[in-house]
């Protein structure tokens, strides 16, 4: 792996892997849902769409056609703390991908017609994923406002239709100017590349992107909860109840060693039929039909900043009450903290986590995205190779101590009350 910085501040990581003749190029910008100003909910995501609408040498539709016409696939996504853009392509298309990313890094062409078109598209995206289906946005949009008090952490990242419709070209220009700076971005190239050649091509295409510094990060710090918080809402399409609960965890970056036990704990609790909560609640008590757990509201433990949380979510059979489910979670966490892990329980959980970490990086795109996230958030892309070992070094005592902190009086939870369904 090679890591360097261009004169304009752009951070670059190269991860050659010649096992298949394909490459992935990713650009991460250090701006996300938590950077949005009040009155502009959903703007980071809307702006992500606008980055595909054309730039100096690329008219509307050109980006898509150039990637797919090179045999590749593309996408972008907006997260709490970053926004990513990426392409996976046959190896011979490296320079084309760099050209495409550099052109829009210099600046998208923002037009009123394209803005209105993409507001419509985003509204349809929200209807598909949230409004027209049961459990839409649960829990990633529903839990943060229960747990957090400040706008940055608590607001709806998909955005209200009012805010989306109120967005202007001036908003977009300002957003680009502030956040889409070379000094605020990370470029990664993974796959079948010659690193020396890649470096030359990166200099050629990105070298003259104007240097703009990274803006200050949004102030997101909030104190931990001092008492339980619990809310509920009616989902008119849901046929059965659901519940999600979250607890604050240590800073994933500044306190990484203290954070990793929580990542392991989430798997101990919910990974497969032999995990604590699946075994107890799904298979034995039958109080829930499924239960899952992960770190970060969008499930990205290694690319999220403080403040964040361990999240559990469960679906209940129709007609069942949520209280006993939360009580069982409390009981199981207490049992884990008090009686400890069973022999072999930690080792098998860590073995499965190693598989997941390796599998994510088998795909050239997965490798590229993971590395970019680690560079952006942790400043350490080599963590991609260290994580299986670091996860494997977490001790039973650390997991038990982590479990002990997940008490009801630090818990934020939200309940889905079924409003109909079939």
């Amino acid at each position, binding site marked *: 792996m090679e890591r360097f910085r261009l004169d304009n501040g752009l951070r670059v990581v190269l991860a050659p892997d010649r096992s298949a*003749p394909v490459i992935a190029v990713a650009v991460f910008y250090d701006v996300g849902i938590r950077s949005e100003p009040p009155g502009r909910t959903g703007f980071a995501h809307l702006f992500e769409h606008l980055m595909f609408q054309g730039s100096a040498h690329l008219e509307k539709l050109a980006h898509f056609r150039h990637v797919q016409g090179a045999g590749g696939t593309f996408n972008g996504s907006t997260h709490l703390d970053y926004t990513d853009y990426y392409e996976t392509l046959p190896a011979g298309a490296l320079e084309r991908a760099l050209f495409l990313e550099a052109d829009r890094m210099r600046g998208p062409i923002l037009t009123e017609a394209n803005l209105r078109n993409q507001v419509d598209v985003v509204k349809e995206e929200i*209807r598909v994923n949230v409004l027209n289906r049961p459990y839409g946005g649960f829990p990633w949009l529903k839990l943060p406002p229960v747990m957090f008090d400040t706008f940055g952490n608590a607001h709806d990242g998909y955005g209200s239709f009012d805010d989306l419709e109120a967005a202007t070209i001036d908003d977009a220009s300002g957003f680009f100017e502030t956040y889409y700076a070379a000094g605020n971005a990370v470029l990664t190239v993974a796959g079948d590349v010659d690193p020396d050649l890649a470096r030359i091509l990166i200099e050629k295409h990105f070298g003259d992107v104007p240097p703009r510094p990274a803006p200050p990060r949004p102030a997101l710090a909030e104190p931990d909860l001092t008492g339980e918080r619990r809310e509920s809402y009616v989902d008119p399409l849901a046929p059965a109840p659901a519940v999600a609960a979250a607890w604050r965890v240590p800073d994933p970056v500044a306190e990484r060693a203290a954070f990793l036990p929580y990542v392991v704990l989430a798997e101990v609790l919910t990974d497969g039929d032999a995990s604590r909560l699946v075994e107890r609640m799904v298979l034995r008590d*039958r109080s829930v*039909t499924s239960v899952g757990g992960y770190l970060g509201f969008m499930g990205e433990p290694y690319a999220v900043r403080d403040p964040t949380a361990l999240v559990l979510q469960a679906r209940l059979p129709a007609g069942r009450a949520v209280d006993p489910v939360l009580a069982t979670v409390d009981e199981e966490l207490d049992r884990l903290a008090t009686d400890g892990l069973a022999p072999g329980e930690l*080792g098998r959980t860590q073995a499965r986590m190693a598989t997941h970490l390796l599998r994510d990086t088998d795909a050239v795109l997965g490798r590229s995205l993971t590395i970019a996230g680690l560079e952006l958030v942790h400043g350490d892309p080599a963590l991609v190779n260290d994580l299986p070992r670091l996860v494997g070094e977490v001790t039973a005592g650390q997991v038990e101590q982590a479990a002990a902190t997940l008490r009801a009086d630090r818990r934020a939870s939200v309940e889905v009350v079924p409003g109909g369904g079939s």
Partner: protein
Amino acid sequence: MTSVLPDLELSGPLRVPEWVEQQLPTGLTVIVVQRPSVPLVELRLRIPTPAAPLAGLDVLADTLMSGTAQMSNVDIAAALQAVGGALGVSVDPDRLLVSGNGLVTGLDRILEILAHVLTGASYPEQEVATERDRLVERIHVARSQPAHLARVALLRRSYGTHPYAVQTPEPAQVRAVESDELRDLHRRWVRPAGAILVLAGDLDPEAVMASVSRALGGWDGSGTPPEALPPVPPLVTGPLVLSDRPGSVQSSLRLALPAVGRTHPDHPALQLANLIFGGYFSSRWVENIREDKGYTYGPHSTVEHSVAGSVLVVSAEVATEVTAPALLETSYELGRLASVPPSADELEQARRYALGTLQLGMSTQAGLAGTASGYAGVGLRLDHLARYADDLASVGVDEVAAVAGRYLAPAAAVSVALGDAERIEPDLARLTPVVREER
């Protein structure tokens, strides 16, 4: 800075990885594919189950790993997890599929547990009851999802009395499935004759073959592979079927069009015609109804292959108020390609996409395992990829035009719309005859 789009360096011919194949005396075919990128293995065991009872097989899939005389469901999961592994089971009208992955050092143990389950699944009553209830709950949730309801309506409309017409059981049928029946179903269907095991990963094929023989050689249930399903009937055109979902803020549009299987001479040209129409982002239809008109977020059009037949399915979730305009543009784009040849540039762009994504699909262990397994289910092997790539490379504009005329004609489409009928029916009825779906 450069203002000129850089040229592409030519890709070499498609690189298909090495694989080794062997058939055990029991009739199990084993295919081992090498990709030593990460120290993992992907596993796919495909067991043909044509015309197996729907509810019974769904419950069987959910309880195959629920226990044996020696191991509980938790024991099985823990033993797999200990070697970084996990196995899941799914079904469709063609097959039961056990799929999973794990650390390559644990392959022998994963195979041992797989064999243990295949030869000794006991379908314990408590666990069967649990999984039955969970399945019923999932069916209820599915029925509140528009994508599921639209698919159900389209299958029913497309397939008539063929087994593909109904792919989700009724809750009452699920509740009636008992352990005895599952044990019978297991004896009848979970057999090695005709089954295909694919392993892909950081593997030494010879050693792996020996491990598989050792572990799975005792999985018998001798006999011949089950008889294939009859071919799907041709689509019968008729009025658009309108399925009412009061209050829906979007309408789900679905069109089924005729298609052909992977070895049919028209297949490469049909794939390219579908791409030009709506099969990728840079297609006419997506550029029209999303990037120009903003009617929808993720429209897609795909050739779906099953063992008994293939179909081209066009899908879009559109805002309720533009349901009819979206259908109009869909028919327009289908009709345009069916009537007027595409440009050479459009064909070239689609061809490069088709060839490039073939290479991308083979660049992971999971992609290789999935492709090898899906192909093997219809009697093909990975070398078919190279032939397919050659065919894609040689298709001309005339062939695409001819094939589009045959398969993409809107007059040949079977159409379904799910949405708020009161709001969308009058507008739809101006474009096409409409009938309300009978429930």
